[in-house]
């Protein structure tokens, strides 16, 4: 039997690069076992889950599980909040990580470099539970540190827990605090991969420090930057649940400004333990993320195919 053109091309490619495809196999196996096979559970979003039936035999209930989210009156609000916060976080994170990475890579004092890098990593280890206790200690109206200082200088104390406005600034700052260490390591590693000879050639040509950064470092960092931004965009609908849950909690006064999809869903489903509804919310986020990344990725691919995610 003669193989058709497409199938023949497929096999030809596999055979030609068989060593490479075999090298890819262990990873593929892992993802099939631990990601793709469990993925079947996504149908729970459309089912009225009970234990007798399990995932397969529980009765279907169409889009019922999705109703609570869209009937909450807050669906649009939390979706835009989630996107807005994630975009802000991504922008701030990218900007500062690149800036810090470039600065550190240019530093000559080894001790300063190592120490500052280690310090910037510390927030990663501090859980949001502890962070929220810190913030409370600093900012609480009655005896927080900041308000004590303000009162000593005769100023009015600030009440951040009753006024949403502060959080538009506070949240990005805290996000940055937690992740700048991580981000700068990533970009530093990318900078380390740049061939030194480029810089030496630039010096010979008479470039100064700033020009070296703008003409060499940043352009060569572009692929990494684009990729990390793409990865961030792929998560644009998924909020930082831990952060919002621990910092805002059930503070109704702040919720309109700070509710994200994940916190709304969590609060709504607290009493019911309904797998179907939880799954439906996750499905909503997945579908939106999928659409966004497919669109953005294909745009990037048209402009510069090597920079695209896939």
């Amino acid at each position, binding site marked *: 039997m003669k193989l058709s053109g*497409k199938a023949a091309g497929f096999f030809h490619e596999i055979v030609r690069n068989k060593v490479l495809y075999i090298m890819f196999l262990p990873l593929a196996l892992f993802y*099939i076992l631990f990601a*793709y*096979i*469990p*993925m*079947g*559970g996504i*149908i729970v979003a459309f089912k*009225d*889950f*009970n*234990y*007798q*039936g*399990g*995932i*397969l*035999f529980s009765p279907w209930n169409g889009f*019922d599980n999705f*109703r*609570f989210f869209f*009937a*909450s*009156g*807050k669906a649009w609000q939390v979706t835009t909040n989630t996107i807005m916060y994630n975009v802000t976080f991504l922008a701030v994170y990218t900007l500062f990580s690149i800036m810090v990475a470039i600065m550190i890579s240019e530093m000559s004092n080894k001790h300063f470099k190592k120490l500052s890098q280690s310090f910037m990593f510390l927030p990663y280890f501090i859980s949001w539970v502890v962070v*929220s*206790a810190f*913030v*409370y200690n600093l*900012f*609480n*109206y*009655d005896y927080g540190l900041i308000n004590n200082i303000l009162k000593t200088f005769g100023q009015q104390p600030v*009440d951040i*827990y*009753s006024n949403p406005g502060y959080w538009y600034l506070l949240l990005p700052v805290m996000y940055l605090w937690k992740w700048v260490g991580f981000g700068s390591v990533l970009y530093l590693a990318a900078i380390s991969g740049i061939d030194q000879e480029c810089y030496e050639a630039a010096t010979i040509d008479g470039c100064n420090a700033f020009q070296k950064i703008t003409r060499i470092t940043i352009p060569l960092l572009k692929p990494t930057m684009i990729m990390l931004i793409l990865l961030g965009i792929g998560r644009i609908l998924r909020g930082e649940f831990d952060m919002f849950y621990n*910092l805002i*909690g*059930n*503070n*109704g*006064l*702040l*919720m309109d400004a700070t*509710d994200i999809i994940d916190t*709304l869903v969590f*609060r*709504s*489903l*607290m*009493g*019911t*333990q*309904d*797998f179907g*509804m939880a799954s439906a919310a996750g499905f909503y986020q997945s579908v939106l993320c999928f659409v966004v990344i497919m669109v953005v990725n294909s745009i990037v691919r048209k402009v510069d195919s090597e920079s695209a995610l896939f």
Partner: protein
Amino acid sequence: MKRLKVFSLLMSITLIASLLLTGCGQPQGAPQNTTAATTVAQGSTAAPAESTIDLSQEVKITGYLLGAAPAGFNDVMKALNDKLKKDLNATMEINYIGWSDMQSKYPLVLAAGENIDWIFTAPWSFYPQQAAKGAFMEITPEILQTYMPKHWSAIKDTTAMQEAQINGKVYMVTTASPDKKVPSFMYREDLRVKYGVPEIKKFSDIEPYLAAIKKNEKGMIPLNLESNYDLGTPFGALNVEAYDQLKDPLMVTGGGSGLAYKPFDGDGKLYYTTNDPEIAPINITNAKKIKSWYDAGYINKNAFANKVRSKDSFVQGKSGVGFGNSMDLQGNIAQAEAAGFKVGVVPVVGGKSGKYMADPYINNGFAIAAKSQNWQRTLMAMDLIDEDPTYENLVYYGIEGVNYVKTADGKIGLPEGLTADKNTYPPDAAGFWFTNKNLHLPLTTWTQSYIDLYNRIPDLLGVDPLAAFSPNTDNIKTEAANCNQTLTQYSNPIALGAVKDVDAAYKQLDSKLKAAGIDKIYTELSKQISDYLSSKK
């Protein structure tokens, strides 16, 4: 795109494969129940039940409790298993589900069904939801008579079995001794006397005390509330004392449905707490009072972010009032008195009835997993744990001589040289809260004020005919979810006094609840309640 086509083909294959696999992984729940029924049929025809139970096969029982294992847990389990092996030719292994993981892990452990015989359950620990999903085995009086005779005789004349019914069937083994507790608050009696504040007999009397604290004690906040338990408590206490207790049938801490019934009226009629002509004005008056306290600085401004409970900061002298219930305040009372404070404790009971709802029998208990292979031996073991003093003391207090000693006057105390904070197995910490507390001895550490309170409590308890009613939310799950999150967002600030205009806030809450579908819940639950009550007649 070619890539997408190949990809979607691969996806469909793996999806189908995964569905088949998960199907294989799902054991059948139904056959278990018929096994139980047939065994029961055999069991009930045999006269002396024990003699027909075969103990020759050694059996391993697996159970789940809530919380975390105390430090001395392994030693206690060893001792427990020595006894179980001797008495029942069985050994038990207990795993814990942490408080913070309850939401996710509790249903998963049951859904997977691997290796699980029994699990702690209660209405506040997902009993109605899981029973409705078929996670538990049915428990009939015959089963209890056969395999848990001691426990059966302790509960057979009580309302326990009735309370545990879900759609006419019972799926858990309740405790024989429901907790006798009433929400209470404590205040500084020494400061009250010092500043000449009149006696405090109920929470509504507290305002002069709060003013005195605010004026004279600079380092203390009169009501230093925490974000979860304490937040709505002062508001709730004022309401309860104003008319009587109200209970939300879909009660969730900080949330719920916005509807309520009056337990002591007994008719199960539902009221809209936000616009009922009788209830709402009282709520609004109390909300305004709380707001005046908030504005005057009697309440901490940022309670939403405070994670330290008022009863704990009370002990440190940072709060003028501590909230809890008549049982869990006991430790704090002891600590406060050790710090030199004089403490007054007042239970919060309904203004009209003078009572508070008693905890139902189902408030602590355990259930048998539907897929359990050794449910008979499990029940027999639990009978011993629940009702046999030698077992009870072991799982509750630990190892005699190591974790506790029995004093000459019949109390439980600590052995020589051991302080409470070094005890590797504190009472209650292990999670066996369903054992028969009527068999427990008093502790040496109970202070007089605690004992006085403890003795007053039984007179303050009333029975709620709907105590064991578990609503079926299948038809209203969307509305329940939305009312819950609406209440969390809009009613908590009112309860704290943090809103700018109470009347406007109530109107807003009312309209938001309407939009969330509260009317549908009203219709559905009213029907369920009246069906429930008539079925009990």
